[in-house]
């Protein structure tokens, strides 16, 4: 059996979404089979790429055949491949769910179904381009594609609150882009290169200008990743958007910005991860974790609870930075990447299931959700499984990720960070437990006759949640071999 070459797979992953989106938009038709075929093909390409990377490891591809400082490189890394894979899984699940969700939309909202798929594919293409990029400016453009598509997707829900949230998201996103671009300009002005490897080789960690550049890059990405205190735009945008959109945004778009922070701080900027910088990032994370967790506990609307949970979970992810200050960084990067993958699968499942439950209940209020009955029970099952993964119960992917980070914290004697991690896990347990308790012990009757829940509204969420739970075993075993799942990128 011969798989397509890694280069070919990368080209498929980055160009197919854009080509399909352009075709769909230009033709003005919505051939459901064509969009689903594109989504399936992308998923197969991501799986095949995962297989290739497992065999071959890190590979670098010159675009246009031009060498580094002049041209742009793609860098296929194990951590990036994990992100490409979860993007494909969430992308496929969302496309199927979206096809079912917008199908029964009455009246003028048919417009929503018409632009959903092109925008969805654009976002997918931007994400894929971002996960293989290794060039500061190329990343900026990929971030722009991703952000603009996300804003448009939020605005699809034409309700006033959603439009306001989209506007706020647009402004926050543009602010992040501008600050990031400033950082790119500062570093380019200093070294005249944009390529990650070239930058890593040249970077002078003591230089004030370079530090200013690193700060600007980081602040821009913190705004895009909605890290406390720059999280203000997230709950509205994610909580008010249509469910498949929320799943994409919470699961992948925020994670992409965060992944970029990981790439930078474990890659070219690794030398700058001093005690001060790492601690500061960790403190922001602790703030996000506690603030987001407490607010999630106070929410009365289902999707707002899930949205605040995202703020909290990314606070948890920020704790990788203080743990990477000294000692072996590889398990920390592995833990961070797995944490993102777990969150992407579980959170997307949670949002998709939440959308189904809201439709089944006719209300978004947690107190008025239907109980564990009828077809809604499959959505509840997805919620329960996704909650287990988010909390990090064994044997989920969340458990493997958190275990890696906890082990590092214990071996470093970082008791403070260990305490914060446990507090975060307890908070997650508390707000998800409260949701399950309220809804399952005191269910509302729901509207009669009950709305039809097609398999498209139930199966994607359930499969994503199952994947988040089942892939933990595999990721955990991988770690126990002593073989690191995620290697440090070359040149750092």
């Amino acid at each position, binding site marked *: 059996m011969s798989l397509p070459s890694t280069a070919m797979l990368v080209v498929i992953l980055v160009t197919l979404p854009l080509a399909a989106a352009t075709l769909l*938009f230009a033709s003005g038709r919505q051939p459901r089979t064509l969009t689903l075929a594109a989504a399936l093909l992308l998923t197969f390409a991501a799986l095949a790429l995962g297989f290739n990377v497992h065999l071959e490891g890190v590979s670098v591809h010159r675009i246009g055949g031009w060498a580094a400082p002049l041209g742009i490189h793609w860098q296929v890394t194990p951590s990036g491949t994990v992100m490409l894979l979860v993007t494909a899984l969430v992308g496929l699940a969302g496309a199927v769910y979206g096809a079912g969700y917008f199908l029964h939309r009455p009246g003028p909202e048919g417009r929503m179904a018409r632009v959903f798929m092109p925008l969805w594919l654009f976002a997918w293409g931007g994400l894929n381009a971002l996960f293989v990029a290794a060039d500061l400016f190329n990343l900026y453009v990929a971030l722009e594609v991703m952000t603009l598509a996300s804003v448009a997707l939020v605005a699809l829900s034409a309700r006033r609150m959603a439009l306001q949230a989209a506007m706020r998201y647009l402004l926050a996103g543009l602010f992040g882009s501008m600050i990031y671009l400033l950082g790119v300009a500062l570093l380019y002005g200093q070294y005249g290169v944009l390529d990650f490897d070239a930058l890593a080789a040249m970077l002078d960690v003591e230089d004030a200008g370079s530090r200013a550049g690193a700060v600007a890059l980081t602040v821009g990405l913190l705004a895009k990743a909605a890290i406390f205190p720059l999280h203000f735009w997230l709950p509205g945008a994610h909580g008010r958007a249509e469910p498949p959109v929320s799943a994409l945004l919470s699961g992948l778009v925020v994670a992409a910005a965060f992944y970029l922070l990981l790439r930078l701080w474990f890659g070219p900027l690794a030398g700058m991860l001093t005690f001060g910088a790492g601690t500061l990032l960790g403190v922001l994370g602790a703030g996000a974790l506690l603030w987001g967790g407490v607010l999630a506990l106070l929410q009365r609307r289902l999707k707002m609870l899930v949205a605040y949970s995202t703020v909290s979970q990314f606070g948890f992810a920020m704790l990788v930075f203080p743990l990477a200050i000294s000692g072996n960084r590889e398990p920390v990067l592995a833990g961070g990447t797995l944490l993102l993958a777990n969150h992407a699968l579980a959170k997307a499942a949670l949002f998709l299931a939440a959308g189904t439950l809201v439709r089944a209940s006719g209300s978004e209020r947690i107190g008025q959700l239907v109980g564990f009955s009828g077809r809604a029970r499959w959505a509840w099952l997805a919620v329960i499984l996704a909650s287990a993964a988010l909390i990090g119960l064994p044997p989920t992917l969340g458990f493997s990720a958190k275990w890696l980070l906890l082990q590092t914290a214990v071996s470093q004697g970082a008791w403070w960070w260990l305490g914060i991690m446990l507090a975060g896990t307890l908070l997650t347990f508390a707000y998800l437990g409260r949701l399950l308790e309220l809804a399952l012990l005191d269910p509302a009757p729901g509207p009669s006759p009950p709305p039809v829940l097609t398999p498209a509204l139930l199966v994607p969420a359930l499969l994503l949640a199952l994947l988040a739970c089942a892939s933990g075993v595999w990721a955990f075993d991988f770690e126990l071999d002593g073989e690191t799942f995620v290697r440090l990128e070359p040149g750092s």
Partner: protein
Amino acid sequence: MRAPPSPTASDPGNGDGLMHPVEITFDALLLFSMVVLAWQGVHARNMFRAVVSFIMFGLLTAVAWVRLEAPDIALAEASLGAGLTGALLLATLGRLAPERRGARRPKVVKLSTLPWLTMGLAGTTVLLAVTLTLPAPGLGEAVLAAMPAAGVDSPVTAVLLNFRAWDTLLEIGVMLLAVIALWSLGQDVLASKPRLPAPALPALVRLLFPLFVLSTFYLLWRGGHGPGGAFPAGALLAAGLVLALLAGAQVPERMRGAPLRWALGAGLFAFLVVAVGLMWAVGTFFAYPPQHASILIAIIEIAAGLSIGVMLTALFLGGEPTDIKGGGK
């Protein structure tokens, strides 16, 4: 649009020693006027004045780019920053209720300005200090060294469409995405004729429009060896089309729907077809064979230039033109 670091933009003053006093005076005046206009744009309490200040600011920024020896960016800034954005703002102003149009905006509360002002000043000072110490090496020499194999004579076009063509492809994607995003919000807001008190405009536009089209193709052709190329050409085309719309022209009936959408997507599509085609033919994504580079780049430039023109016009339209009464142009 945002061009990748241009090799011509680096080291403007070095090499020819001290600047002439006239140049210094000109630059100082330019800088002063820009600051005044920026202040007026933000603080003028009459909205119309604020918009006009903004347009003037865009024009002077273009002049500043010329002074920095970056004519490509100057062209883009003049047509987009001043022209098209200005037209958009004026159209928005025309759509506001008459009593709000010339309305005095509420005065900014003093208390909240102070922290922002301090932060802004501190940020500017730090940036200035950092920028002045930057060695700014740039990739100019690497670009010049690779020029023989680039297929075009203009270094800027070589960077945009060959060395960093992947960036440019994604940028065209961002523009198309902006159109889809805007159109997804609702119908064409300019469906009603703008009430512009300019009786001579239609005649003038009839006279000027062919010139705009001609200049567009001139800029496209020129992009191969000098300042020009798809972005400025598209912006110029858009300027002509927007002017025609302002003069009362409508999107022709037979252009609406699919033909218009294909025109919008053509640029990105041409880019993708060439890039993936080369992957299939040569084995490397976007690797132009040197003997075919010129023609392939020209194909992309023409498709992208026309698409950019239509995309910018579509942004001005504000929504997908629907089937309404009214004939062609």
